[in-house]
């Protein structure tokens, strides 16, 4: 196991009034635990407000954790400390962001952006920096002649490749991808997914892939975690979850996707997502679930097995012929 998160809680306080009194809190992540194995890709899916982005940021230390810990290669990461330059434990966990436009400093050339992390961590010297950057660009299928250009000259897909190259420059063990293809066109999306698949295989990278798009996650990830309102509702091998989801929310998510088969129209999920400020008692999905009853007033626990779900009335498994 290369990365583990135990019982992570993140919440934001809402302050208001003249004296800035605490009015409440947004519970973005509520007791999420995850395990990532070496060379594996884990998908974290959910809709807006489920806490997947907050969780990703908490793992890399961009977001403070109120409770819980993150353990990378057996070493607990002290996330609430201000980062110090060159700290080696940090650099094994890198992140790529969603928006290609703001992911690169518009005033720096690609060479400068890519060489900076390496120079800071003494992974290369000023003399061989250009060679190293050329290598990185080659890994993401871009030509080294692009090194001295500025970000505005590149398309969204190319910028994402450059962001991936920057993350790779520190030779991380784990790469966290936060909606990295969501802002891209379908044809470009496919290219980036294929690139990530290649990197996973050739560099032996472990990936955490955060997305709202289940079909994309299907392509890339062996394991999958479904979040709803800050909690894990189902997790397990993605193939199993897709063919036979056990949690009603997972089923609802799959049903809502418009497929290319007109004979299978999307099924509607009733109701609205409750506010993350006031989490409902018991199962957070209770208000929208057709199978809900009194037992659901007790918060269900996530079964800790290879394929686990947090539900009192899990769906019957689909037998595969």
């Amino acid at each position: 196991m290369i990365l583990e998160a135990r019982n992570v809680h993140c919440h934001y306080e809402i302050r208001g009034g003249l004296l800035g009194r605490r009015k409440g809190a947004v519970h973005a992540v509520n007791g999420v635990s995850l395990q990532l194995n070496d060379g594996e890709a884990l998908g974290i899916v959910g809709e807006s407000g489920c806490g997947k982005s907050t969780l990703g940021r908490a793992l890399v230390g961009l977001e403070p954790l109120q409770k819980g810990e993150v353990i990378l290669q057996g070493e607990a990461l002290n996330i609430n400390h201000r980062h110090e330059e060159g700290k080696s434990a940090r650099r094994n966990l890198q992140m790529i962001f969603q928006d290609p436009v703001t992911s690169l400093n518009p005033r720096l050339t690609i060479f400068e952006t890519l060489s900076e992390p390496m120079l800071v961590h003494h992974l290369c010297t000023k003399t061989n920096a250009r060679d190293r950057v050329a290598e990185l660009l080659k890994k993401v299928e871009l030509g080294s002649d692009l090194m001295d250009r500025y970000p505005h000259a590149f398309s969204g897909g190319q910028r994402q490749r450059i962001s991936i190259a920057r993350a790779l420059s520190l030779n991380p063990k784990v790469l966290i991808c936060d909606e990295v293809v969501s802002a891209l066109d379908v044809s470009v999306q496919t290219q980036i997914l294929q690139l990530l698949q290649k990197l996973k295989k050739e560099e032996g990278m472990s990936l955490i892939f955060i997305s709202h798009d289940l079909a994309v996650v299907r392509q890339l990830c062996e394991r999958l975690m479904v979040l709803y309102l800050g909690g894990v509702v189902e997790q397990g091998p993605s193939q199993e979850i897709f063919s036979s989801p056990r949690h009603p929310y997972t089923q609802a998510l799959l049903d809502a996707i418009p497929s290319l088969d007109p004979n299978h129209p999307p099924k509607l999920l009733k109701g609205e997502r409750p506010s993350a400020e006031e989490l409902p008692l018991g199962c957070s999905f209770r208000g929208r679930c057709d199978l809900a009853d009194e037992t659901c007033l007790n918060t269900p626990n996530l079964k800790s097995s290879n394929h686990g779900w947090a539900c009192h009335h899990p769906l019957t498994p689909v037998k595969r012929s």
Partner: protein
Amino acid sequence: MTSPLLKVKDLSLGVKTSNHLLQLTDRVSFDIGEGEMVALVGESGCGKSITAMAIAGLLPDPNGVKIEGEVVFEGKDLWKGNPKDWQNLRASRLSMIFQEPSSALNPLMPVSSQMAEIFTLKGRPVDMQHLRRSLDEVGIPDPDRVLKSYPHELSGGMLQRVMIAMALLLSPKLIIADEPTTALDVTVQAQVMEILTKLQKDIGTAILLITHNLGLVAQYANALNVMYAGRIVERANTRDFLAKPLHPYSHGLLKALPRLDGTPLEAIPGSVPSPDKFSDGCRFAERCTHRKEACSQPPPWKVRSGNEDGGYACILEGER
């Protein structure tokens, strides 16, 4: 055959830049019949959004855009007429919904005022009952609360529903929906599309759906037009298209779509050309696996066998 509600013929839009004219769309033609949902499908930079703006008469700077071709709505050519005609048409006969509901609504006005504005602009008395009913029809459970709220107090899905309600207030004949669900969660998307199609049936509104999501097209649209680099490369009704797409780009799009069943992806190599590099010949040729010499010439339009309305722009024939 009855004449279509909207007929776009050879619409070519160019923007004037410092040195020359940048041709963004090239002879775009398609029809929308009454009560139909027709999709305009393509990726970013294909020109679908600016075509939608041209039809709605919302081009950012009419003097900076050179327009050729016709946009005929209910028999009247909109670009040749008086600009005031647009004004009269909008909201009552022709309406538009946008991608980002939060930026399409004025953050400083409550929902009721913004909806009421539509009536006052048309010189009609404001009917609160009508407003309530329209919010009800888009599936909003508590219309009074929503009417009093400001946009920032409502969720994305709710705002989009409010936008749809506003678009439908005066029962237009055509709604242009520019990526209406792209910014929404998939479960909310399903709800919003459901509302759109229900209203389409109830009121008989036609919908021009601009999207890049082929799944939406498959589920909801009667017909589609595929755009690439400013041109329409294929047109068909949805059933025919899904059964047999004819243009290599359409093929590529379908193969590049990530599937829930885990079918491996096939990417289209290369990237979309930018408008200043558009060629006269087939613009997809450089990425096409079936590229031939003749592709440097403008591609011919071939009619789809079995359905005259459908067709594709390619020199290749039939089965692949």
